[in-house]
C-alpha cells in the first residue's frame, strides 16, 4: 500500500514538474469575463469571440511560431471575484489577458496585472474611473465615458434639446457617465432639471417619474443597465412623458424591448459598434454563428479585435516580454480589425470615439439618422 502511495505521489510530482515543459510550446492567453451572475451571457459572448480569434490566429500559424491556447477566469461582474480571477490568471503564466466587462469589477484587477507585468486589453469596460488606476499595462479599446458623453451631447444639441433629466444607479459605470454628462452639459450652458439615483432591482419608479414629469425636461438620459431601464422607460411613458428618452451603452440590449414593450419605441441608445451594424463584420458574424450556434453579443466584436491586437503586438515585438509588448501596443496603429482602426492616447484609451447612435424601431435597435 505504502509503495502504491509513493508511486502515486512521485507521479503527481512528475506531472507538476513536467507541466511548464509541456506548456512551453503553447502560449496561454487569459480571458477575464463574467461567466456567472447577471452579466454571464455577455461574458460568454466575449469569451467565445476571443476563442474564435485564437482559432483563426492558430490556423494562420500562431504567434511567434507557437500555438495559442486560452484559459478563462470568471470575474462574475463582482470586485471580489474579479480579484480572485485575476490573481489566478496572473499566477498561471499567461502572456497577456483580454477581458474586463464590468468597470466596477475591472478596476481592482488593474493593480494585480500591473504588478505581474501582464499586458491587459480591455474590450468593454469603459468607465473613466479606470484611467487613473491604470499602472500602465492596460489598454482600453472601447471608447470611454468621455466619448459617449460627447456623442450624447452632440446628439441632444442636434435635436434642439435644452434641458435634460439624468438618472443613474450609483455604481461605478452609470454614476461616472451621469456625472460626466451633467458636468459637460451644464458647462455648455444647458440645464439639468433632475439628477436622480435609483436602487438596482427596484420595480417602482413612480416617485422619480413624478419628479421628472413635473419638471418636464426635453429629454431623459438613463445611464445604467437595460434591466431596470426598461421598467423606467415603461413607467415614464405610461405617466405621459412625451420627450426624448436616451439610454447609455449598458442598455443597448434587445432585452430592453422585452421589458419596456411598445414604450421603447423611439428610444435612443448610444452604443459601441456591434457586429450587426458593421457591414465589414459579416464574415465574423457568420463564423461566430457557425462555431457557437448563436449570434455574436454586443461586445463580441471588440473582444475579437482585442485578441487580434494582442497577437499582433506580440508578433511585432518579436517577444512575449511584457515591457516590449506594452511599448508596441502604445505605438500601435492597428487596422486589421472589424470595429475600426485602433491606436491609443497617452492615457492608453482608444484614440477616437467609436460610438454610434441607435434607435428603437419595431422592437429592435436600428442605426439612427
Amino acid at each position, binding site marked *: 500500500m505504502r509503495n502504491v502511495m509513493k508511486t502515486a505521489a512521485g507521479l503527481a510530482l512528475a506531472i507538476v514538474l513536467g507541466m511548464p515543459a509541456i506548456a512551453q510550446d503553447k502560449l496561454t492567453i487569459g480571458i477575464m469575463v463574467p461567466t456567472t*451572475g*447577471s452579466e*454571464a*451571457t455577455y461574458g460568454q459572448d466575449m469569451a467565445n469571440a476571443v476563442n474564435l480569434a485564437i482559432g483563426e490566429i492558430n490556423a494562420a500559424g500562431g504567434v511567434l511560431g507557437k500555438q495559442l491556447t486560452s484559459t478563462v477566469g470568471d470575474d462574475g461582474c463582482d470586485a471580489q471575484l474579479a480579484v480572485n480571477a485575476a490573481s489566478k490568471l496572473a499566477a498561471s503564466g499567461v502572456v497577456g489577458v483580454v477581458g474586463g466587462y464590468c468597470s466596477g469589477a475591472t478596476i481592482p484587477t488593474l493593480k494585480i496585472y500591473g504588478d505581474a507585468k501582464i499586458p491587459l486589453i480591455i474590450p468593454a469596460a469603459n468607465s473613466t474611473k479606470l484611467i487613473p488606476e491604470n499602472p500602465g499595462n492596460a489598454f482600453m479599446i472601447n471608447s470611454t465615458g468621455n466619448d459617449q458623453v460627447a456623442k450624447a451631447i452632440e446628439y441632444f444639441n442636434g435635436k434642439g434639446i435644452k434641458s435634460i433629466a439624468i*438618472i443613474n444607479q*450609483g455604481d461605478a459605470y452609470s454614476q461616472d457617465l451621469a456625472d460626466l454628462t451633467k458636468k459637460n452639459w451644464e458647462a455648455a450652458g444647458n440645464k439639468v432639471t433632475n*439628477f*436622480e*439615483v*435609483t*436602487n438596482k*432591482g*427596484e*420595480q*417602482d419608479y*413612480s*416617485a*422619480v417619474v*413624478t*419628479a421628472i*414629469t*413635473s419638471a418636464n425636461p426635453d429629454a431623459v438620459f438613463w445611464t445604467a443597465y437595460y*434591466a431596470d431601464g*426598461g*421598467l423606467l422607460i*415603461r*413607467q415614464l411613458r*405610461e*405617466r*405621459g412623458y412625451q420627450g426624448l428618452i436616451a439610454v447609455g451603452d449598458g442598455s443597448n440590449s434587445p*432585452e430592453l424591448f*422585452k*421589458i419596456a*414593450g411598445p414604450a421603447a419605441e423611439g428610444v435612443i441608445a448610444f452604443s459601441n459598434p456591434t457586429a450587426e451594424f458593421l457591414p465589414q463584420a459579416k464574415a465574423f458574424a457568420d463564423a461566430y454563428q457557425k462555431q457557437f450556434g448563436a449570434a455574436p453579443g454586443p461586445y463580441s466584436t471588440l473582444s475579437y479585435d482585442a485578441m487580434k491586437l494582442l497577437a499582433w503586438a506580440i508578433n511585432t515585438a518579436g517577444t512575449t516580454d511584457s515591457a516590449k509588448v506594452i511599448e508596441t501596443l502604445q505605438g500601435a496603429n492597428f487596422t486589421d480589425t472589424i470595429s475600426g482602426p485602433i491606436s491609443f492616447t497617452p492615457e492608453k484609451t482608444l484614440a477616437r470615439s467609436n460610438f454610434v447612435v441607435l434607435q428603437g424601431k419595431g422592437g429592435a435597435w436600428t442605426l439612427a439618422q
Partner: protein
Amino acid sequence: MTIFDIFTNQLLNGIVLGSFYALVALGYTMVFGVVKLLNFAHGELYMVGGFAGFLLLSFLAPYLGPGWFGVAVSMVLAMIAVGFLGVVIERVAYAPMLSAPRLSILITALAVSLVLQNGMLTLTKGQYVPFGAALGFGGVRLGSLFISYNQMVLVGVAGALMLGLELFVSRTQYGRAMRAIAVDKDMSRLMGINVNAVIAVTFFLGSALAAAAGTMAGAYYGSLWYFMGFLIGLKAFTAAVIGGIGSIPGAMLGGLILGLLESFGTQLPGVGSEWKDVFSFSVLILVLVFKPTGLLGKPEQERM
C-alpha cells in the same frame, strides 16, 4: 405642475408602493408573531408568487383572456400554490428547528431564501420574463392627477386582503389560536390547541399574501426576474419593524408609511432620490429610538 399637484401625485405613488410593502410586511409580521422567526425567505415567496401567477396566466389566458379576469384567477391560484409552498418550507426547513437556538433557524431562513432565488435563476437563466397581462391604461383624471384603474384595483385588492386577514385573525377560531400561540406556545398546547396546524395556517396565509403581491407586481410593472424579491423583502421587513413587528395593523401602517416616505423623500429638496433611502431609514432609527417596539407594537411583558 403646481406644488399641490406634485403633492397629490406623490401621495398616490406612495399609497400604491406602500400597498405592496404592506402586503409583504404582513407575512413577516404574522410569522414573527406566531413562531418568533424572521422569515428571510419571505421576499423570495413574493418573487415565486409572481412567477407562479405568470405561469398560471399563460395557461389560463387562452380561456379567460389576459385581462382583469384572467389575472384575478391566476392570482388566487398562485396564492394557493405559494401558500402550500410556504407550508412545505415550514415543514421541511423550519419545523425541525423550532426548538433550536434562534440563530440556527435564522440561518436556515437565509438558506431557504438562497435556494429559492438561485433555483429561479437556474430555471429562468437570469432572463427577464415579460408578464403578458393586458390590463389597459384607462383611468380617471382629477385635475393633473391621473389615477389608473390598475392602481385603484391594486390598492383595493390589497386593502380587501388586509381587511380579510384582520377579520380572520380577530374573529375566527384559528385566528384566536394564532393569538394565543403568540402569547404562549406551550400553554396553548396544554389548552388543546393544535400548535403545528396553526403554525401551518400562519405560513399559508403569509405566503399567499406575498404571492398576491408578487402577481399584482408582475401584472402592474410588466416583468419578472429572479432577484425581484430581495429589495422588497428588505423594505417590507423595515415596514414591519416601523409598525411594530408582530402587529398586523402595524405592518399595514408601516408599509404605508414607508411607501409615503420614499415617494415624498424623492421630491424633497435636499433629500431627492439619491438620499431617499437614507431619509426613510433615518425615520426607522428615530422610531426605534423613541418607541423600540415600533409604532403599534406592544411592549413585551415578562410575568414572574
